[in-house]
Every structure is written in structure tokens, then in C-alpha cells.
């Protein structure tokens, strides 16, 4: 999978850069600025399968950004922080395939600056809790064995109880996480689909069985856990498949801090990429239309039916009603 490491020269002796390089043992190419190479040319997305480059860099500019509407639970401000671009997994619906010009991964290692900006944001909302989501542009746990930044963000939550960090993941890479003390405001959320669907569309990700097992482990250790059924993809016997998924989660459903539901949707550009990259995908088996906001979605009655069906099943299987929210839906 990995091809070369591109390292910004000024980070040559940075302990985090050294740690990553020593673990991967790849050829290192020193450059001045990752932006001279990363995304400069349109690199076909599927080249990530065998020529994925890793850039080690410092994030310049804004590192903490306001999340879009309906990104998380309503009522409190939501932000996401950027400590990486792109992902090692290959989910066929992933919007990253149409978002950047390249699938190459960037790891930003100036975490102190990111945390400093998070503190500034937190202080600008003195009356309320503030959510910080990791995983907007990458999986937030998949590479933590290389990057080793979890401890810093955990400490930030410990010192700032009003800050809530959500680590969104499809990974089962929780070794580093398990060495930390569980905190109410340090949440690990797992994206899940029925096994039969995930096997067809979540390429290179851990199985659903493995993800659910890890959720159980973390929950029993006292970690705050949550789940995302997003995107939900329609398929024959869809309701039965979600019943089975929820059944397999029966030990953790009552403990879920929240469960978000979202039906598959694409911007026009991402949809075009999905068609190009995965012409035989299950995603194309159900008719999609241009919807009210120009996004490509299932028809309105179908997506409403999907959401209400999964909502009902989730409640039936022990998820607390008030903890279910609809993500990025009209």
C-alpha cells in the first residue's frame, strides 16, 4: 500500500516524524512544503491501492473549523479539527474521493498548535460545552499506532471538561486508546453497516463483528461510545439486515451515548467519482435522484421510510429514543 514518505525538511528531527518514519521504514523524500506536491496534480483515487504516499507536515492556516449544520447532536456548537487528510480505507461512498485531488495521506504533527486553537474556540463559548470532531478528513484511530497523538487530545479533555472530543472511526486500532483513562467527554464513535453491506462497500476496513467487539470492550472499560449508521444503503431485505446488526449490538445499545442515522447522499462531483471508481457497486443498484439541495439521494419517500424503519428498530433493540439523531438530513 505505502509508496514513499514525503517529509517537510523543517520536521526532519521532530520526534513525532522520526517515530513515524522508523515504524514504516520507507524511502523518505525531503521537501520544503507538502503543498508543492500533495494535490498538485490530479492523482487517480484508486492508485491508493498500491502507490499511497505519506506526507508528514505541519498544518498551516485554520486547524479548527465550524462543522456544517446537523453535523452532530443539536443544541451545542460543533467544530472539527484537522490533523490529517485522507484515509487508508477504501469505502466506496467516501466523499474524499471527490474532495481532494489525491488520495495521498497527510499527517499533520503540529498537534500543540491544533490544541491551542481548540482552546481558543472553547474559550469563545464560555457558557456551553463545545464539540470537537476528529475524522472529518480521515479515520481518527486507524493510524494512531503510528502517530501517537491520542494522549495529547485526551489530556486536553481532562483539563477542559467543557470540551467534548469525538473520535470517529471504522478501525479496531484501540491499543493506544485502552491505555488511557475513560472520560465522559472523550467519545469514540464507530461507523457501522450491516455485515452483508459492509463486506461489499467498506473495502479494507475491519469486519463489523470486529468493530462491535471492540465497542463492547471499550464500553466495559468505561469509555463513552457512540455509533453512526451513516450512510445507510438500501438493499433487498434491508430492514432485516439492520435488525441483525442491532441484535449483534444488544449489549451496547442501551449504553450508546448517541446513534446517528443518515441515508447515503453525494454531491454531484463525488457521485461522478463513485460511478467512475466503482461502476459495479451496490450503491448503483437503487435509483438516485437530484434532491432539494442538489445532492444525489434516494427519493424522498424512500429515505424517509429508511430513516423511520431504522429508528424504530433501534428503539426496539434498546437504543434510547432521545439519543438517536438524524445526521445531515433535511
Amino acid at each position, binding site marked *: 500500500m505505502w509508496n514513499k514518505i514525503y517529509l517537510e525538511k523543517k520536521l526532519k528531527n521532530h520526534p513525532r516524524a522520526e517515530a513515524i518514519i522508523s515504524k514504516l521504514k520507507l524511502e523518505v523524500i525531503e521537501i520544503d512544503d507538502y503543498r508543492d506536491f500533495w494535490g498538485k496534480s490530479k492523482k487517480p483515487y484508486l492508485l491508493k491501492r498500491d502507490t499511497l504516499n505519506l506526507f508528514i507536515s505541519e498544518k498551516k492556516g485554520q486547524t479548527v473549523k465550524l462543522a456544517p449544520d446537523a453535523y452532530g447532536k443539536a443544541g451545542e456548537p460543533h467544530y472539527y479539527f484537522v490533523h490529517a487528510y485522507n484515509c487508508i480505507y477504501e469505502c466506496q461512498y467516501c466523499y474524499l474521493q471527490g474532495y481532494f485531488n489525491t488520495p495521498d495521506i497527510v499527517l499533520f504533527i503540529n498537534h500543540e498548535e491544533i490544541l491551542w486553537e481548540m482552546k481558543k474556540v472553547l474559550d469563545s463559548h464560555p457558557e456551553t460545552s463545545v464539540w470537537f470532531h476528529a475524522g472529518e478528513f480521515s479515520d481518527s484511530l486507524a493510524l494512531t499506532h503510528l502517530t501517537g497523538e491520542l494522549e495529547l487530545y485526551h489530556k486536553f479533555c481532562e483539563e477542559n471538561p467543557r470540551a467534548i472530543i469525538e473520535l470517529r472511526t471504522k478501525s479496531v486500532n484501540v491499543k493506544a486508546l485502552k491505555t488511557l483513562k475513560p472520560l465522559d467527554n472523550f467519545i469514540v464513535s464507530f461507523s457501522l453497516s450491516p455485515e452483508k453491506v459492509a463486506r461489499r462497500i467498506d473495502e479494507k476496513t475491519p469486519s463489523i463483528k470486529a468493530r462491535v467487539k471492540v465497542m463492547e470492550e471499550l464500553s466495559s472499560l468505561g469509555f463513552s461510545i457512540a455509533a453512526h449508521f451513516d450512510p445507510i444503503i438500501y438493499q433487498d431485505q434491508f430492514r432485516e439486515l439492520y435488525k441483525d446488526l442491532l441484535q449483534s449490538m444488544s449489549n451496547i445499545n442501551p449504553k450508546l451515548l448517541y446513534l446517528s442515522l443518515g441515508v447515503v447522499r453525494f454531491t454531484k462531483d463525488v457521485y461522478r467519482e463513485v460511478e467512475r471508481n466503482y461502476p459495479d457497486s451496490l450503491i448503483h443498484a437503487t435509483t438516485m435522484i437530484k434532491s432539494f439541495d442538489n445532492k444525489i439521494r434516494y*427519493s424522498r419517500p*424512500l429515505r424517509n421510510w429508511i430513516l423511520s424503519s431504522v429508528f424504530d428498530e433501534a428503539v426496539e433493540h434498546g437504543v434510547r429514543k432521545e439519543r438517536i439523531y438524524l445526521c445531515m438530513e433535511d
Partner: protein
Amino acid sequence: MKLITLAHYGEAQSIIDRFSLSKKSSELYQNDELTLLLTGEGPFEACASVSSLLGQKNFSEVINLGIAGALDQKLLVGEIFEIRSIYLAVEGKLQYKTFKGAGQKDLITSFERILGEDKAHPLRGFGDIVDREAWGVAFSCKEHGVPFRSFKLISDVAGTIGACEAVKESAQELSLKLLAKLEEVLGEVNETREESFHLGDEFYFTFSLKHRLHHLVEMITLRDEITALDVFKKIDLGALKELNITPKARAKLLMEKLELELDPFKGKLQEALSEWKGNYQGLDIHTDPQWESQSVKFSFTVQNKNELEAKLELLAKVDLEPFYQILQGKVDVE
């Protein structure tokens, strides 16, 4: 007619001899099936010369052949590869536009010759091979909508001193290898992926209906991971053939069955909508066929005042709530 492009005569000489291409100009050689163009060195030179020719003549495909330097040091001199993606580098910096091919290796077309390791090193994460023309040829083909393939023969290691001399010395040998590859490519049998359905004379499809038929069958095969034959078994094609109706009507029925098989939810929606509309006989009710908008349009025709009053009375009784319930997905599906 296929167009073969190479940069220099030295690379092309064996091909010109083998196919007995006659010289039309210093850059152009031809027989009844092939045209060979010498593009000269450099991406913009290649782009200009190929564009000029594609503007004058129609070609079914352009095949770019040539020697190239290895960026990936594991590649061996003498190996030949079809190209998968082509980047352009100007002064060592990658440019935005990239072209895709069906091959195995990634190529960087460099605006300048890569004469030192310092120039080659930063490009190694993006390409396995470096040349001077392919990007320009690909650009021109894309602009003219002509299919393009590129094959590169490793002649040296990019960034090594003396690479140019080494290439000159073995030009004859390299040219023979390029010829062998071209012969192999031209001899390939084109296999078409399209599966045709021979449903017999019992069905009549227009061109667009046939296209839709293929699309529906393909979507069901995708979803259920079954073959087209299984799809037809599932909807009982045999029973359809037994019906005493015209081939056109039979085809229509087949399409309806396939639509329903693919999207049973849509069938339920239509049923519920028809039931609601049925309560208002005499009014034409139009809703968004995409089911996205909640707008409803009513129309009717009247012959006299009494009819008008009756229709207005009916219109006043219209209850939109059942329609909104359908939009909310509140239909009995299972």
C-alpha cells in the same frame, strides 16, 4: 486507421520497416492501416503535432510508444509497460492535469530532461517511469475524443549520467522491442464486455427501451449478485412468453416487472398514490415524478357552470395529508 506516435526516428525505424510505411513527410509515415507520426521531443511539441494531425484525419485509436527512464530503481532496462496514469512535471513541479490509462505503471512526462538524481528523487512518489512526450499526446487525444494508450520501454535509469549516450548506442535494439510490443497490441482481440440478451421474437424493443432493459437487468444483477439469466428466471420470463399479447405489449410488461423487481418500494408508492388520486375522479392530479417536491398541480376541464361548481366543490374537499404521508415514507412496504 490507428495512429502510432513516437518521438524519434531511431525508436521508430523497425516499425517503419516492418509495416512498409511510406514516407509522406519527414515526420509522417503511412500504409493503408497505420499512420506513424514522429512527434519530436517534449510534451508541448508532441501535443502540437498530434493535435494538428487529429484535426485533419479521423483515427480509431492513438498508440504512443517510446523509450523512457526508470524512476523506480526496481524496473529493469529492456522491460516494457503499459501506462496507467500520466502526470506532467515542469521544473520538477507536478502540474494539475493527469490522464488515465489501462496499464500498470505510472508515468511522469517531464518538461525538462531529468539529468540528475536531485531532479529524479522528489518525483519517485508519483511515477515509476519518466518520459518527455506521453502527456502531450494524451492531452491532444482527450481534446479530440480519441482513445489513447501508451507503452514505455525502459532504456535507462532516470537521473543517471550518460543515459542519453547509452540510448543512442542501443537504438536499433530498442526499436525492435518497441516493434514487438506494437505487433502484440495490434494482434489483441477486442473483447466486448457487453452482454446481449436474446429474448426471442416474442418481445419487441425500441432502441431506447433496449437500453433501459440492459440497465435494469444490470442493476438487479449488481444488487443481488446473480446473473442476467437468474434475473429472467426470477421474473418468470417463460410465463410472459405464454401470454397471448403482442410482442410490444409483452416487452412493456417485462419492463414493468423488472422495474418492480428492482424497486418494490416504488411500486408501493405508485399504488398508494393511485389510491389517493382515485378519491378525486374528475380532477387531474399531477405530482413530482421524482417524488422530491411536495407541490401538487390540479387541472380539470368543464363544459358548463354546473360542472365548474361540482369540480370546485370536489377540489375544496381534497385532503393533501395522505399525499404528504406517502412523501414521508409512511407506506405499507413489508
